[in-house]
């Protein structure tokens, strides 16, 4: 049965060390191209679509990650309320896999949103690799 997870930010203490910025005016074409590269690299047989409108939705933060001043990855974060945010989508062109941006971006987001007063980052499905993040918790049956 599917298990879901979140990060309890009270139990994490990361520092934002990546070169990132929250994009004020996201270039949806560029972001969609990175998403396409990500899906191709990951060999997803079935890809969930991303629409340009999601990048400009005021409920979403789009965090861009840079390597040598080039945008190489992004995260879409859905601000549910003042305490809880959901990591909706991440994409990366995997130009330099040793950067480990998949996991390092999550640590960076812990630092960013903890500093803003958020308490939880909802991660969706509790994939194994996410368990290495401090504050990782399986969401239980009680709602």
């Amino acid at each position, binding site marked *: 049965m599917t298990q879901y997870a979140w990060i309890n930010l009270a139990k994490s203490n990361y520092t934002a060390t990546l070169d990132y910025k929250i994009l004020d005016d996201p270039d949806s074409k560029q972001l969609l191209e990175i998403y*396409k590269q990500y899906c191709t690299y990951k060999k997803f*047989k079935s890809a*969930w*679509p991303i629409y340009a409108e999601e990048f400009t939705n005021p409920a979403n933060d789009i965090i861009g990650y840079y390597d040598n001043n080039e945008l190489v990855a992004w995260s879409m974060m859905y601000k*549910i*309320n003042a305490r809880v945010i959901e990591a909706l989508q991440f994409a990366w062109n995997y130009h330099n896999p040793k950067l480990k941006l998949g996991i390092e971006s999550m640590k960076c987001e812990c630092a960013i949103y903890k500093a803003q007063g958020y308490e939880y980052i*909802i991660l969706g499905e509790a994939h194994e690799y996410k368990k290495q993040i401090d504050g990782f918790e399986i969401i239980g049956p009680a*709602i």
Partner: protein
Amino acid sequence: MYARINLAHTDYNADKLGINAKKLRDPDTDELDKIYRAYAEYKNFSSVMPLFKEEYTYQQSDVFGYYDENKLVAFTLCFRYNDRNIAANQFAWTYHKPELRLGITSLKWLCAYYKFRCYDYIYLGDDTAYKQQLAGVEVLGKL
């Protein structure tokens, strides 16, 4: 694998589905929470993706209520990506009378509702077997 409904391939008539449904303009979030809790308990989910009150009233959310004997017994929370595409994000019902088959009938009703409003696709999430009985179901392929 993910699935969507191609509404061009559906022809459901909302008046002939035998379901009492309506869009909730001012949803009672406590009532919806109770239904979601009852649903999770009935399904015996060990881990539940939380739903927050703000999600029901978010500007791109559509909430539909389904009634039995004038009592709200189920709901669907949909997210509009744009004016062509929508995701059926969460369904819940009390299962007070399983023979109503509200899970599948509510989806047919949503097809009629959104097709009438010129939407093209309803995104369903995972391609679970029961969804295959719907007209217009397509498995999402590679990007």
